[in-house]
Structures are given as structure tokens and as C-alpha cells.
């Protein structure tokens, strides 16, 4: 019997929970739970006077972090950056900026105003990412709150409610109501109640009731949480009709909608005022004179006493010797750059794949969404364009920049299209969320990370299977790349972390490499 199996699973769950619960009690009593830790503070030693030169390959966030920390200590750093700009996947697009997609270069034509920008790569900083936040503070990068989840924004799925859009709040309130009703029913069942004491059961039930806004009878009958059908201020509010559970279940968006505010994307999220690349400007205010732009690394040779790098710049090939080398060039590009790394490094470099995230943006001629009670946040749809982001900044100004598509999983779908086809796809997808979208927007741009010059992809993918987690082999490959080559060459970047796709990971990988190098320096000096 179907229901029996379900009850069985629930019981198993409770049994497991009992075990954890016991552990938690013990932990709390002994005060073993981790307290919020601080950002790492590096205490690097001064350089060995004969070994002060450092070459940094790639002006990504991790490269700049290394340059900044080592310059403070008196090292002589040179940064070789292949692109016309630093920042790599931290890329804020403004008026006049080049989007260097191979085969499809674009120039952004947004209005030239401080709030008219688009964060085409990194866009959100969680409050738990202490190390990147520490640099924001140190470098004077002003932050503001970023709105991720917006209950007033829309949800649309062709398979649900004949494809009509509803507000996020309608989806989540009803979904939670029905889920709570199911949970409450299950818990009041005698055999499930049994593992809990009376007061525990009471506490759990009251949480469930509150989770779904259940009535006294433990039934969900709609909720004012979804807002009013009419009235509410000067007159009595009239409750909205419920949306049938079955209708909501037609859509698979519930998965994302119920977790948008959890984990790394949970509040409080922040963004630098004026664009994510203010972080890069902050670092460049310290080490900008150390950067050589359009300097494409051609070979890396690790020697006993240092590193020899050749690079192409201004139509000529140059050579540079340094005592240490830090390298944030994406490993899959490094495979094609002549090097003398040991075979196990080459194997590991080849193993890492790249995500193919894709974003697109439009300039909005008016902030039409603000007339629809939407201020910041995300509308979700099941179309390939997936999301619309409304800017958290520039509220009530005449215009704004909208994200019109964000495919963080399989961006290849849009990447393969021509520029015109991409834009048409986003316009027609967006019309399902905002019927008058097309006439309200102009000046589109697309950023297909899989084709961006010197990047060719988004974050490193170490795992062949996300569900299976890291295999032992993968962990070994990761440890290989993380270890310095001959104590001279260090791979860095979020690619050398187990939590790629975050700036925090890039910073922490740089800090880890610096600490490793510093130990070596101290050892040599002793």
C-alpha cells in the first residue's frame, strides 16, 4: 500500500533524527558547537631579500589578492593578464564596455549613468563570506543590500495554471500550507507521535501550523500571507482564493522557490555600490601599476630556483623570470599552454571541466516592474531564460538594467544561438512574465561564459556526478593541483577549492597558497 510505504519512510527519518538529536544535546551542553569564526588574518613574513620577485598569471580575484598581500610585504609582483581588463569572472558591464565573446564581440550601449550597470559574472555576496567582505572593508568598497528572493515577483510555468503568471507569494504560501497540512496529519497519527514526548510533539506541531498558516483543525484554508484579494487597509481584507495543490504540483519550480533563500543565496546578501568590479578597482588602487594587460601567457617552466614565463604582448614574445609564480589561469586553458608540470598535474588539469553559465541583460526604458509592487529580486519561469532579476539599486529612478536570462546550469542552449536568436528567445520568454516586456526594453547584451575569451566557461567542475559527490579519485586530483609545483608554482582561484563559483573561494584559495608559500620562505630563512 502506497501510504504505508510513505509512513515507513517517515518513521525511519524520525529514528535517524533521534540519534542526531541526542548528539546535539550533548554538544550544546559541552559547548562544542562552532561559534561564528572570523576572516582569516594572514601574518606573512617579509621576503628573503634574494627571492622577492613574484609573477602572477591572470588578474582574476585570486591573482589580485596574492599581489595585494605580497606587495604589502615588500615582494615585487608582476601580473600578466591576457584580457583588456582584470577581474575575469567579476565583470561589470557599462556604457562603452567591450564584451569579448570570441566570434561575437559586443559593445554595451547602456545609458552612461552610475546605476546603469550589469554584473555579468559574480553578483551576490553572502554575509557568511567573511574573507571577501574583509577585503571590501579594507579597500573601501561600499556595500548595499542585494535582494534575492522577492515574494512579489512572478512565477510562471507553461504546465501550471494554463501558463499564467502568479506571484511568488501565491505559489509559496499555498505550497507551504498544503505541505504543512500533510505534515500535521502525519504527526497526529498515533505511531508517529510516539517517538516524541508530549511537549516535543506540541512544539513540532505548532511550528508546522505556523509554517503553513493552518487553521485550528490543522487544515489549510488559504492565508492572508498571500496578500488580499481586496481591502486590507481602510476596509476589512478579503482573503485570496486558494490555488489547488495539484495545480502547483504541475510545476517543478517549487524546488527552487522554496530554497532560493537558503544556503549561499540566503539573506543577507550584498553587492558593492556601483557594480561588483568595484572590488577589482579596490585591488587595482593598490597594485594596478603591477598589471600588464593583453599579455597572453605562452609558456610556464618551473625551475629549481624559480619560474620562467613567456608571454605575448604588443606583437612580441617576452620572457620573465621570477622566484615564485601564482597562477589563476583556468586549468582547461592551461592544458594548452606549454608547461613542464609533472604528469600528475597535467592529468588533474585535464580532468576539471567547466560550467557554461549564461546571462543576458536589457536596458529598461522605464522601471515598469516597480509599478507592479516589485522592488528587486527574481521572477522565475520554466522557460530556458529561467529568470528575470530586478535591480536592487536605483529604485524609483527613470531607468534600470534588467537581467533577462540566467542559465546557471546548461547555458550552452543559448550559447549556440546567434546573437539575434538569443535576444528573440529572451524577449519571448520574458513576455510570459511581463506581457509588455518587449516594448519596455532596449539595448540587449548577452554574456555566454563558455565563449568569453581567456575564460571559456564558468566555474570549475571537479565532480562528474553531483549526486554522488566527490569520489576518492577526484579528491586526490584536487589535492595534486592544490600542492605547489617544486615549491615555486601555485595554482589558485576558485578552481582550487571544493566550493567553486564563489569569490570567497577564490580569495581563500589565494590565502591558502600564500600561507603555504610563507611556510616555505620561513623555512628557507631559518
Amino acid at each position: 500500500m502506497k501510504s504505508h510505504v510513505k509512513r515507513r519512510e517517515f518513521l525511519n527519518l524520525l529514528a535517524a533524527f533521534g540519534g542526531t538529536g541526542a548528539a546535539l544535546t550533548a554538544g550544546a551542553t559541552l559547548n562544542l558547537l562552532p561559534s561564528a569564526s572570523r576572516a582569516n588574518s594572514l601574518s606573512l613574513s617579509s621576503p628573503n631579500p634574494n627571492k622577492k620577485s613574484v609573477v602572477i598569471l591572470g588578474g582574476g580575484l585570486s591573482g589580485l589578492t596574492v599581489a595585494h598581500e605580497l606587495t604589502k610585504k615588500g615582494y615585487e609582483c608582476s601580473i600578466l593578464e591576457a584580457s583588456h581588463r582584470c577581474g575575469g569572472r567579476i565583470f561589470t558591464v557599462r556604457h562603452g564596455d567591450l564584451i569579448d565573446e570570441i566570434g561575437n564581440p559586443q559593445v554595451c550601449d547602456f545609458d552612461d549613468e552610475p546605476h546603469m550597470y550589469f554584473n555579468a559574472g559574480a553578483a551576490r555576496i553572502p554575509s557568511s563570506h567573511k574573507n571577501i567582505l574583509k577585503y571590501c572593508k579594507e579597500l573601501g568598497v561600499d556595500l548595499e543590500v542585494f535582494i534575492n528572493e522577492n515574494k512579489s515577483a512572478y512565477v510562471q510555468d507553461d504546465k501550471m495554471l494554463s501558463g499564467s503568471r502568479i506571484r511568488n507569494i501565491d505559489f509559496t504560501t499555498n505550497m507551504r500550507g498544503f505541505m504543512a497540512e500533510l505534515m500535521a496529519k502525519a504527526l497526529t497519527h498515533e505511531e508517529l507521535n510516539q517517538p516524541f514526548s508530549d511537549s516535543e510533539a506540541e512544539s513540532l506541531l505548532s511550528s508546522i501550523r505556523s509554517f503553513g498558516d493552518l487553521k485550528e483543525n490543522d487544515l489549510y484554508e488559504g492565508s492572508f500571507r498571500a496578500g488580499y484579494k481586496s481591502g486590507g487597509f481602510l476596509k476589512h481584507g478579503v482573503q485570496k482564493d486558494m490555488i489547488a495543490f495539484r495545480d502547483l504540483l504541475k510545476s517543478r519550480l517549487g524546488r527552487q522557490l522554496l530554497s532560493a533563500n537558503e544556503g549561499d543565496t540566503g539573506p543577507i546578501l550584498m553587492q558593492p555600490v556601483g557594480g561588483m568590479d568595484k572590488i577589482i578597482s579596490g585591488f587595482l588602487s593598490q597594485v594596478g601599476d603591477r598589471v600588464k594587460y593583453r599579455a597572453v601567457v605562452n609558456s610556464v617552466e618551473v625551475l629549481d630556483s624559480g619560474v620562467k614565463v613567456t608571454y605575448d604582448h604588443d606583437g612580441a614574445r617576452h620572457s620573465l623570470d621570477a622566484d615564485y609564480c601564482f597562477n589563476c589561469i583556468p586549468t582547461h586553458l592551461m592544458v594548452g599552454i606549454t608547461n613542464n608540470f609533472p604528469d600528475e598535474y597535467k592529468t588533474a588539469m585535464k580532468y576539471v571541466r567547466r560550467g557554461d553559465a549564461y546571462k543576458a541583460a536589457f536596458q529598461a526604458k522605464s522601471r515598469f516592474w516597480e509599478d507592479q509592487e516589485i522592488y528587486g529580486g527574481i521572477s522565475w519561469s520554466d522557460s530556458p531564460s529561467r529568470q528575470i532579476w530586478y535591480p536592487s539599486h536605483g529604485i524609483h529612478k527613470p531607468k534600470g538594467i534588467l537581467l533577462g536570462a540566467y542559465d546557471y546550469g546548461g547555458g550552452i542552449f543559448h550559447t549556440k544561438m546567434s546573437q539575434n536568436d538569443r535576444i528573440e528567445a529572451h524577449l519571448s520568454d520574458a513576455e510570459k512574465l511581463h506581457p509588455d516586456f518587449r516594448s519596455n526594453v532596449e539595448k540587449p547584451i548577452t554574456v555566454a561564459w563558455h565563449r568569453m575569451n581567456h575564460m571559456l566557461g564558468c566555474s570549475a567542475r571537479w565532480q562528474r556526478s553531483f549526486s554522488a559527490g566527490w569520489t576518492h579519485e577526484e579528491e586526490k586530483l584536487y589535492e595534486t593541483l592544490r600542492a605547489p609545483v617544486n615549491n615555486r608554482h601555485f595554482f589558485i582561484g576558485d578552481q582550487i577549492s571544493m566550493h567553486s563559483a564563489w569569490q570567497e573561494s577564490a580569495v581563500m584559495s589565494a590565502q591558502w597558497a600564500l600561507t603555504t608559500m610563507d611556510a616555505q620562505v620561513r623555512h628557507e630563512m631559518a
Partner: protein
Amino acid sequence: MKNQIKRAIPKQIRRSALFLMLSLTASICLSASNEVVDNKYCTTCHGSDGRGNEAIQAPILAGMEDWYLVRQLENYRGNIRGFHPSDERGIAMQAMAKNLSDEDIIDLVQWIKTWEYSPPDTTVTGDKTEGEKLYASCAACHGENADGNETLGAPPLAYQNDWYLVTQLKNFLNGYRGTHESDTFGQQMVAMARPLKDDSGIRNVVAYITSLRSK
């Protein structure tokens, strides 16, 4: 490719030829941006001096015959290669070539000629004795040492990345390459690849082909 190496221009001249090329090649300055964009993005995928990148699956270009380079770039541009929806790699390259003008192609080929060839690592293992038997039917066009035959339009194979030869033979068998009506050269290869039958046939012949490199 071998000929190319023999013909190789002394290093110094080659380098100055490179300067010249870089300054001559048409580069577009997109209006409204101060940044210059050119077509010199090949090495991002094909690696330093076009030595190939297995992680991107973009093959060696250094040392490749100019007539073959031109034809392949034209084929990609004309959607004769890289058109099949499942041909991920071909599609990637097709997008890189679709906006090239005839002059761009000539410039690029001149640029590629300045790159020095160096033999790639061996990554494919197979039974060379079996491979030699299979290769007997290939030699008529590709040459006994697999160094190509311009008159027949058959490129050198011995100097190419072995993993790339494997993908291309699979592409011929899978209909990704050589099926377009204008692909007269590719069409010949479709029939030629058939006797290789499967993975092991392909690996054997490729293992033999790359062993000819040293000869």
C-alpha cells in the same frame, strides 16, 4: 607538416614576420568602445602557438598545410563542418569561423605558419600491427608515412593529436562530417572510415598513424 618544418623560416625572421602580421591583420575597432578586437583568438582554444589543447578538444594547427587550413576554415564558415546538432566540438569551431572574411582567412593562415611545430604527447593506445593492416587502404591518399597528399586533397595525419584523429574518424562514421552535399572531400572519407568499424579499429589505426611520426 614535415615539409613545413623543413621549409621553416629561421626563428628570428619568423618572429619579425609575426610582428608584421599582427600589425597588418585587419582588426575592428568596434564603435563606442576603445578596445580593439581582432581575430587572433585562436590560441585561447588551440593552445600556445597552436599546439593543441586536449581539454578543449581543439587540435594542433602549427605546421598544418595552408591549403588544408583554408579549406577547413571555409568549411566551418559555410556550415559544411560543425552543422550537426550533436557535434559539440564542430559547433564550437563553426562559431569561431562564421564571421571570417576571405582576407581574414589568408591572414590567419599566414599567422599560423609562423608557429613552430612540436610533436604532441601520445594519448591513444592500440594494436599497431592491426593498425598497419588497416592503414594499407589509407596510404593511397594520405601517403605511406601519413604525411599527406595535396593533389588528392588528403591532409597529413602523422603529426596531428591522436585524440583528434579518433574524434574525426568517429565524426565521419557518425555523419557529423562528410555528409554535407558540398563537402566533396569529406564525402570520400566517409566511405574510407567504414572498414574501421568500431572503437578498437579506430584506435589501432590511429596508434599506427602516430607511430609514423618518428619515421
